C-alpha cells in the first residue's frame, strides 16, 4: 500500500446527505413546468414522434437511462415508446468530434436522424454545454419539440441553454453541485416517463391527430 487512507466520520456522511435536501424539495415548486413538458411530449408521441436524447459525461449516462425507460417500461402494461440516445454510437460520436467540430456532435445527428414530429431532450448539468445547446437549436429549426434539463452551474463553453428561445420547455435542478443536479434530473426523467403515459391514456386531450393503439 502506497500510503494509509484518512479515517472518515459520520459527520461527513450526514452533511453530504443534508446538502441534497434543498434542491430536492425545490423540484416540487417546479411541478407545473414538469406537467407542461409531459403534456407536450405526450402530444408528440401521439403524433408518431420519437424521443432523441443527448448529454455529455454523466448526462450521457442519463440519456441512455431515459431512452431505455421509454423503450422498455419497468411497469408492466405500459406501452413501449420510441427513444434514442445520441451517444450510443461511440464510432459515430467520436468521428463527428474528430472531424473538428465537437459543438456539432448532437446537431449533426439531429439533422440526419430527426423528423419534425420528434422530441429533442438535451441534458446539461451546467446548463451551458455548447453541443447540447446546438442540438436543441437544430431540433427547433426542424420543428421538433425541445426540452432541456439544466442545473444552476456557471461552468461551460456554451450559451445559457435556459435562455435560448429555441428551447420550449426548461426544467431546472436548483443546485450548482453537478452531482446533486444529476440526482434531481433522475427524478425528473422518471416523472416525465410516468406522467407522459397519464396523458397518453387520455388521447382526446392530445389534439386531433390520428389515435394510435
Amino acid at each position, binding site marked *: 500500500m502506497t500510503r494509509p487512507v*484518512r479515517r472518515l466520520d*459520520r459527520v461527513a456522511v450526514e452533511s*453530504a*446527505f443534508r446538502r441534497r435536501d434543498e434542491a430536492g424539495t425545490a423540484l416540487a415548486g417546479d411541478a407545473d413546468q414538469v406537467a407542461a413538458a*409531459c*403534456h407536450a411530449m405526450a402530444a408528440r408521441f401521439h403524433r408518431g414522434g420519437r424521443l432523441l436524447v443527448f448529454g455529455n459525461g454523466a448526462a450521457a449516462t442519463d440519456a441512455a437511462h431515459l431512452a431505455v*425507460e421509454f423503450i*422498455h417500461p419497468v411497469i408492466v402494461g405500459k406501452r413501449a415508446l420510441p427513444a434514442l440516445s445520441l451517444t450510443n454510437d461511440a464510432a459515430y460520436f467520436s468521428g463527428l468530434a474528430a472531424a473538428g467540430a465537437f459543438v456539432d456532435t448532437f446537431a449533426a445527428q439531429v439533422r440526419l436522424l430527426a423528423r419534425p414530429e420528434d422530441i429533442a431532450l438535451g441534458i446539461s448539468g451546467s446548463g451551458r454545454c455548447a453541443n447540447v445547446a446546438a442540438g436543441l437549436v437544430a431540433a427547433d429549426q426542424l420543428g421538433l419539440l425541445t426540452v432541456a434539463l439544466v442545473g444552476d452551474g456557471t461552468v461551460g463553453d456554451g450559451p445559457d441553454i435556459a435562455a435560448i428561445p429555441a428551447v420550449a420547455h426548461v426544467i431546472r435542478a436548483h443546485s450548482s453541485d*453537478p452531482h446533486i443536479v444529476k440526482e434531481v434530473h433522475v427524478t425528473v426523467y422518471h416523472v416525465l416517463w410516468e406522467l407522459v403515459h397519464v396523458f397518453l391514456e387520455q388521447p382526446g386531450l392530445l389534439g386531433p391527430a390520428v389515435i394510435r393503439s
Partner: protein
Amino acid sequence: MSMEALYPFLYAEQSDVTPLLRAVAESTADKAREIVVLRQQLAGHFADTLIACAQDMADRFAAGGRLFTFGNGGSSSDAQAVAQLFLNPATDGRALPAVSLTNDVAVLTALSNDVGFEVVFARQLAAQGSAVDIAVGLSTSGGSANVLAGFDQAARRGMLTVGFAGYEGGRMAEADTIDHLFVIPSASVHRIQEAQTTTYNVLWELTQLALR
C-alpha cells in the same frame, strides 16, 4: 351510434386538459417530496456502511486497484455513471481507473451468443479482475442472475465487492459474495434508482475524502 357518443373523451376540447395538468403537477410534487424523505432516512441507515466501504475502496485505489461496474438496463447506465464519477470527476477529486462492463458491445454480444447472458459480467471479471480491484454491481431487484454471477467471480478472485439493490435486497441480500451492500428500502423502482444515485455519489465523495 357515432364515434363521438361512444368515446366522448376522444373529442374533448383542448381546454379540458387543465384538471389533468393539475393532477399531474400534484403527482410530480408528491414524488419530489417522497425522494427527499427517503434520502433523509438513508443518511443514518447507511452511514456506517458508507464509511467502511469508502475506506476499503480508498485502500484498493491507493494500492493501484481499478474499479469495474456492472448492471442491466437503467442499472447499466448507473454502472456507467459510477465509472464516470471516478474517471472524470465533475468536482475536485483525483481521477481514478474505472471500467463499465457494458461499454464493449462486441464482448457483450460475443459472450451472450456463445455462452449465455448470465456470464457477461463474470467472464469479463475473470479476464480482467485481480485481487486488488473493486467490483460494483447494481440491480434494483437484487435478483439479476448475471450481476450475482459477477459477484461470485469477483469474490473468488479476492476483489472488494460492493452491491446496490432495492426492495428487500433479493438474492443479493442472501449472497455471501458482497462485502458492502446498500439496499434501498422502497417499493418504487424509480425512487430506488434515485436513492442509489445519491448513495453512489456520496460514496464517491467519501472515497475521495479518504484518499486526500
